[in-house]
């Protein structure tokens, strides 16, 4: 009997073996391609998901460590048709160039806004300290997170 995890509210029996990084289970078994590989070393944040309310680099945890747990990926918070306020704010602020970093950043930001509805600029920057953006979209991303915070307080 394999491990069980819950991804965006749906139960998943994991086929991969225990040491497999959660990232590959999410991408290839759960079909969550918005969880992205950037380094596999816990350094870039492209693969960030939320577990127990905390942002986690899914490339850096073996799936066995999250057996029985509930995992939220970017696909679980909104969609093209019904975007989460953060996703909508990223569109409103046009906060992407290549966009590869965006989904991981949205998850780090969500974990922050879930516990801190009115973060300061410094708190937002600290929450994104494990996320890299190579295109230099930082300024727009920070604006988008602030905009989403305002929307979510309404």
């Amino acid at each position, binding site marked *: 009997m394999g491990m069980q995890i819950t991804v965006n509210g749906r139960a998943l029996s994991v086929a991969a073996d225990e040491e497999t990084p959660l990232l590959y289970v999410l991408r290839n078994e759960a079909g969550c391609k918005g969880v992205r590989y950037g*380094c596999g070393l816990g350094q870039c944040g492209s693969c960030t998901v939320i577990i127990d309310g905390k942002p986690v680099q899914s490339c850096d945890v073996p799936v066995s460590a999250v057996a029985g747990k509930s995992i939220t990926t970017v696909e679980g918070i909104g969609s093209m048709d019904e*975007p989460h306020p953060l996703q909508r704010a990223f569109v409103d602020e046009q906060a*992407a160039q290549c*966009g590869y970093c965006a989904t991981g950043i949205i998850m780090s930001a969500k974990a922050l806004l879930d516990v801190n509805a009115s973060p300061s600029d410094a708190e937002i920057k600290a929450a994104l300290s494990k996320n890299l953006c*190579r295109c*230099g979209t*930082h300024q727009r991303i920070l604006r988008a997170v602030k905009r989403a915070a305002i929307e979510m307080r309404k």
Partner: protein
Amino acid sequence: MAIENTVRRNLPGSLETNRNLSQWLDINTDGTVTMRPGKIEIGQGILTALRQIVAEELDVNLERINIVTAVTALSPNEGVTSGSRSIEESGVAFRYAAAEARELLLARAGAKLGVSIEQLSVSDGVITSRSGGSVSYWDITDGDLLKREATGDAKPKSHMLYRIVGTAAPRVDIPRKVSGAPVYVHDMDVPGLLHARVSRPPSYKAELVSVDMDDVRKMPGVVAVVRDGRFLGVIAEREEQAIRAQRRLTRNAKWKEGPTLPEFDPRYLLKLQAKTDVISEKKGAASSGREFSGEYTRQFLAHASLAPSCAVAKFEGGKFTVWTHSQGIYPLRAEMAPALGVPAEDIVIHHVEGAGCYGHNAADDVALDAALLARGALGRTVRLQWMRDEEFAWEPYSSAMVVKTRATLSDAGQITDWQMDVWSHGHSSRPGRGPGSNLLAAWHLEKPLVRAQTANPPLPGGGSHRNAIPIYDFPNEKVSNHLIPDPPLRASALRGLGSQTNVFAIESFMDELALAAGVDPIAFRLRHLKDPRGRAVIEKVAAMAKWKPNSRGDGANGRGIGFARYKNGAGYMAMIVDIVLAETIRVTHVWAAVDVGQIINSDGLLNQVEGGIIQAVSFALKEEVKYDRERVTLKSWDDYPILSFDEVPEVEVALINRPELPPLGAGEGTQGPISAAVANAVFNAAGIRLHDIPFTRERLITAMA
């Protein structure tokens, strides 16, 4: 007597090489328009801008226009998407093609309604006659409408009439991207997909002594282990199995290596044999005065895309289908053919977006890797993703450079003689620049292809000599380019090419001379610059930052300026930065004034310029490819730090629109002005002159000593 009457006309932009209107556009009976750019999206918003141009010229709403992304055999061959030339090449082609399509539709409508075309107006594809009566594009179009060679005669709209071009149309791709939908080549998936990885040598010239492959073949999920010369790869059922197999294979391979790399200082370039060209020489009135000199360097720089390169390939019936994020699918196909030993027609390449690449990274290499491994996959589709350490160690970098300057300053504080010498390897080794091959795996095969030489694009754009000729007006001038063949590290195109180092040198030296002349740096630049557009961006940025002439920093806070006209013929960029000097340098604020001619999408342009600035700050402060005598030693982001969220400056950009002038690209051109502005600000703060990029803590300490 037969008279040769088929003089080939010159057509605008990429229409010149893709002359059929139907290569570019379809007007469909279902109320839509299809456009087929040969240029590709790399996060610069190009597809959104091209769509605006077509909607404008055709007078249809943006939503009607569908974009087919580039694929060989179907899309126009527009070479490579690079050098910020997409608007100049593809945009102009679409502008003329759409204007001509509109004229053809109006002619049909006129005939149908029995009126002259002067009587007609168009709104969202509905053509209305002043005397009443209307008909839509969708009623009168058919498959033959655009099956003809473009004439280039249709006159595009006057910019006075623009409704869509110049506005901040939202990017078409962002909603999907932020939703987490599969949009990148990395996300492709099909039933039965196999996963591949390559096991690279430890260094460029390492020779394979032995490798135990059987041990790897026995690992769970492994489908094939491939060796062709020193090209080693694995294919497995699952991605994590492929990664484990690759690690084992790497451990099982024994290599012989030697010291083949130079010392870790760009000045190694000065010791090598170079091909020297004098690229500018002016002799005016005899010069006299005080003499000054300077020397500036930059290390090798990496593209460091956030996503390591990835491609998907399938080999079936002797033919290859490949999906990749290459910037030039046609040149790539031509280069893959000899490496795979098949004619180019047997390879179809689809472009699928990747993460931002900022130049020629491993997007082409990975396509050949995937095709080579797909041959061992029995007709199944293979997805190959480079690992982070592999991307850092094997991508082509931007060449290290050394620049030396000399000038004579008259007693009146005027530069009367200017000399500059540039040492660098070539700045392009993209596929299609043979003879030889520029694909990594091709050099490692049992029957290797020779490595093609790194070259420079010619002037006026130039490569290592990009922006080496000053835009200032000096009566005497001599600029020489010393091109060094056979780079010891892979070298190719990265944003701005040689312009970062050249502009850094020119603009640092200008500040040093201004100081010697006792003149404010901005006033000093303006006294040597006639070009009115150049003066306008400098004056604009000075006003934005409330520049106070001759103000000195306080030991910790400082301010500096940098300016250039990118490629000496593209956009004008003037930048002022504020820095704080502590243990390291912090850039706190950047102001920029930018003139890139006609603006197509104002927000897209801002996004590009802001991003270019933040990346340029990262280049200037932090980035260098580290190596020892044997190996490139980059393995992770720890070895190659880039600017993080808590280090980014506030950026304010002002755009100067010139709707009457041709549009120019904007993705590049920030790198040089920013590097110089930061160095000038450090001097302004504390009197320390930085000559070597990047301005790390170690270099700061050396410069203080």
